[in-house]
């Protein structure tokens, strides 16, 4: 991105720098929440996406319904760098409450767009100010008070389309799609768009040096959120029961399952549902229902966030010990306690890996983009049934709730579900003796039966109390220890089939390694390019699951120094690696971002460069 200097007539003769860039900028919208701005901002992003440039819109919202400041950041980047980037190039400031902060964040030479119905002096002479009297324009054009308020949003979208030199018709089509079925609303919405567009054409010609030029970099991409993708993955993965309790930021995952099921899972002829969608009374019940349904042979899941996992923990331990499959999505938010419900973190790794009292360990899957959310949702059901145990899929708010320019979803029609070791009536007829917890195959995974399978064989008592191989209660400590040891064996078996890590290189060449996971992926790709630009050679590995596969240990073995990049305070992945693999702590250096904002590439590169160049404050982190 370069700077081009020139004078602006309205800036009292002062020379003001102008940021000049094509298809590479960050725009931030500042609004009042509950004012309908999010859908207009989303529409702006989608328009850029349809122009062929990858975008990553991020909704930075309060835990509130109406009246508080809310922001919406869109990074536009033709190279496909979609992590959050510091510094704002264009600010659309529509909330006087946050003017101070919004104007401050704007980079030198950046552009401030605000509603000049009430004119202001912002005290900065190094930025470009584009004044549009949106409220006055909307009052002139619309009589309905609600429309006067709502249409300001589309007004600035029209303005942006003009100054960025975008094809206005893209937005007209988006409006038509959005109001399909409510045709009466199309005309006034298009009118609002036109108001802003025309005003900018008349007043701001050539005043902005940031442009959106049509490209083809979104071919093969879709714009969707991790929650939406995971909900769809549950439909494709054959889930039939979803029991959940509303909690930000996971709610839209359950709702996505419901939305897609309404379209894709209705029985022809009867109009009855091939799924049950139950809003439970709390997270405990949501988990109980999930376990009950899985016990009875349906694929069932729940979606929650950190506080929900805390509440579900007793049940998670039951499912682990009684060996009942269960799939749980944890869309992580800022903790601890109620924490920052509308901000992102990766701070539930430890509470999920070892959820519940006693010796427990759980399979975790950690996707990094919507496509992987879709795939891991499907995979989670296979693993849960294969290993008869809870599988926790860890998303975070940034991945779950924000839209991403992701690769298209793929499905192989030849794929079969792995329902695990379940004995049918015929199987039971053939075997001499059924023992629910007998390790028949030596892999630690026993055989199970669904209730109602066979009149005389296969019934057993599922329990969270200590039991023997025949599911009978026992207080024989040796028997109980045998069961616990077999569960460890089962967990080890799982480590070879859970998703393997992704490497950024075919072969390790550096003595320095970087380990990362989840939504950090996009910023990491940019950071790695940044390190290369600084002639720092590192190998990188993205961990995608727990228990850790052999490849994870080999990568650690192959490097002398490893940076573990995480979005939490305590370096939870580092702790897990030390605990599970006995890795020497000195070898693992944490890079930690936990302010609730998605980690940025520059944060990662700066920390790594500082450590390598010997800055002590970073080394201690």
């Amino acid at each position, binding site marked *: 991105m370069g700077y081009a200097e020139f004078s602006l007539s309205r800036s009292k003769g002062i020379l003001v720098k102008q940021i000049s860039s094509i298809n590479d900028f960050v725009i931030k919208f500042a609004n009042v929440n509950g004012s309908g701005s999010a859908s207009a901002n989303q529409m702006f992003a989608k328009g850029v996406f349809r122009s062929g440039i990858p975008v990553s819109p991020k909704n930075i919202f309060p835990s509130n319904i109406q009246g508080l400041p809310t922001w919406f950041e869109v990074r536009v980047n033709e190279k496909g760098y979609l992590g959050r980037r510091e510094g704002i190039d264009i600010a659309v400031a529509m909330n006087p409450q946050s003017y101070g902060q919004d104007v401050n964040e704007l980079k030198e030479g950046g552009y401030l767009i605000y509603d000049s119905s009430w004119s202001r002096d912002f005290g900065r002479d190094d930025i470009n100010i584009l004044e549009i009297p949106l409220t006055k324009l909307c009052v002139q054009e619309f009589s309905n008070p609600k429309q006067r308020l709502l249409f300001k949003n589309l007004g600035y979208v029209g303005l942006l389309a003009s100054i960025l030199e975008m094809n206005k018709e893209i937005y007209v089509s988006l409006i038509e799609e959005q109001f399909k079925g409510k045709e009466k609303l199309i005309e006034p919405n298009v009118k609002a768009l036109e108001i802003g567009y025309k005003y900018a054409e008349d007043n701001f010609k050539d005043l902005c040096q940031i442009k959106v030029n049509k490209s083809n970099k979104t071919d093969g991409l879709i714009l*969707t959120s991790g929650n939406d993708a995971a909900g769809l993955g549950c439909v494709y993965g*054959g889930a039939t029961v979803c029991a959940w309790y509303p909690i930000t930021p996971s709610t839209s995952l359950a709702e996505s399952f419901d939305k897609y099921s309404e379209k*894709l899972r209705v029985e022809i002829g009867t109009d009855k549902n091939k799924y049950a969608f139950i809003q439970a009374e709390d997270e405990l019940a949501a988990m109980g229902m999930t376990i009950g349904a899985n016990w*009875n042979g349906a694929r069932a899941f729940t979606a929650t966030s950190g506080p929900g996992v805390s509440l579900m923990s007793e049940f998670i331990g039951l499912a682990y010990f009684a060996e009942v499959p269960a799939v749980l999505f944890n869309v992580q938010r800022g903790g601890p306690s109620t924490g920052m419900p509308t901000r992102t973190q990766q701070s539930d790794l430890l509470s999920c890996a070892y959820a519940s009292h006693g010796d427990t360990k759980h399979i975790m899957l950690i996707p990094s983009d919507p496509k992987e959310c879709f795939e891991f949702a499907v995979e989670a059901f296979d693993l849960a049934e294969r290993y008869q145990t809870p599988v926790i899929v860890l998303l975070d708010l940034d991945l779950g709730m924000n839209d991403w320019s992701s690769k298209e979803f793929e499905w192989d029609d030849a794929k079969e579900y792995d329902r695990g070791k379940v004995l049918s009536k015929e199987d039971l007829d053939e075997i001499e003796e059924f023992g629910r917890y007998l390790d028949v195959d030596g892999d630690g995974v026993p055989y199970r039966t669904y209730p109602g399978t066979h009149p005389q064989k296969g019934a057993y*008592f599922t*329990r969270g109390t200590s039991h023997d191989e025949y599911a009978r209660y026992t207080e024989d400590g040796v028997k109980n220890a045998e069961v616990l040891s077999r569960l460890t064996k089962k967990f080890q078996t799982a480590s070879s089939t859970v998703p393997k890590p992704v490497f950024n290189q075919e072969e390790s060449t550096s003595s320095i390694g970087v380990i990362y996971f989840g939504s950090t992926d996009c910023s990491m790709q940019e950071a790695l390019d940044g390190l290369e630009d600084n002639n720092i050679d590192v190998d990188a590995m993205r961990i995608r699951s727990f228990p850790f596969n052999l490849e994870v240990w080999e990568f650690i073995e192959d490097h002398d120094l490893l940076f573990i990049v995480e979005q939490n305070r305590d370096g939870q992945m580092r702790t897990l690696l030390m605990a599970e693999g006995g890795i020497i702590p000195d070898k693992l250096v944490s890079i930690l971002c936990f302010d609730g904002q998605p980690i940025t590439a520059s944060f990662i590169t700066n920390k790594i460069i500082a450590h390598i160049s010997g800055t002590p404050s970073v080394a201690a982190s």
Partner: protein
Amino acid sequence: MTYIVKPKNHHPLLEKNELGLTRRDYEGAVSTLCAGCGHDSISSAIVEACFQLSIESYKVAKLSGIGCSSKAPAYFLNQSHGFNSVHGRMPSVATGAAMANHELLYLGVSGDGDSASIGIGQFIHCARRQLNMTYIVENNGTYGLTKGQFSATNDLESKSKYGDDNLFPSIDLPSMAIQLGASFVARGFSGDKEQLVPLLKAAIAHKGFSFLDIISPCVTFNNHNTSTKSYDYIREHNDSLSKPDFVPLGKEITADYEEGSSIEVPLHDGSLLSLEKLSEDYNPKDKITAIKNIQESQRDNKVLTGLLYIDPDAKDLKEILNVSDTPLNTMNKQDLCPGSEKLSGINQSLK
């Protein structure tokens, strides 16, 4: 909960039901509860009801929470799958299970600690959702397994075995269940098998949430003369609303009542619950009367038993959620997976 297997030798002349099974075929493991425990009488009433109804045990799922009562499912229906879940959470496990396969019979056994304290939220919402199950509370007013603390169903005036006063009023689960929308609510007494077995049979035959509060004295911790849940107290204060008789589908009605003295309730499967009225203003289909009857008997220090309320036409959860008649757990990939063509359409819609 040790596991003692009973010998399988049957007397050749034991009575058989329509399936050719004897009562022994409906039994479970040997009980490890205290001798004389009311819960064991309830287990045997369940055995009797299932025997008389010729139920196929393997089509029953028996679920429980934690506590003395929740051990009971091990002591009946050996051929049924059982699920001893966590404390107070049986209703949610039953809900999930019933959604997965509505064709099984769900028999939940809970206690007063399990349902009136730690699990009261789940009890409430399970009733409210009209889950098609039989929900039994073996109510002894005490925490037996932790040695005699008061439970929330213990009456205010009832002292502990050690003479301590109960400081808080009791929770009446049947009243709650009626208010919450349970469509079958009854109270029984473990010591009155004649009343209990037909109530159990009707509860099982009823479609919807069947709730049975069964007073079940704890011989060890709550059977003293200052207890209101002792055998003696219940026998003295039992106020039965009706004499229930359950007539399965296709059986001739032999009970002979005087005109106007009985109420007949046809159940959805074609069986008939007939009730010989013992009280003038008894109408089990009216919620307001039912609650009034319960409150009046409480005022008079009586324990009202029998069928308290029934709505034979209520919808159950599966119907409310419009879930398929094919059990969800039998659906396979062909039934459930929309396939790649649909997915490419979805991809297009996200551009």
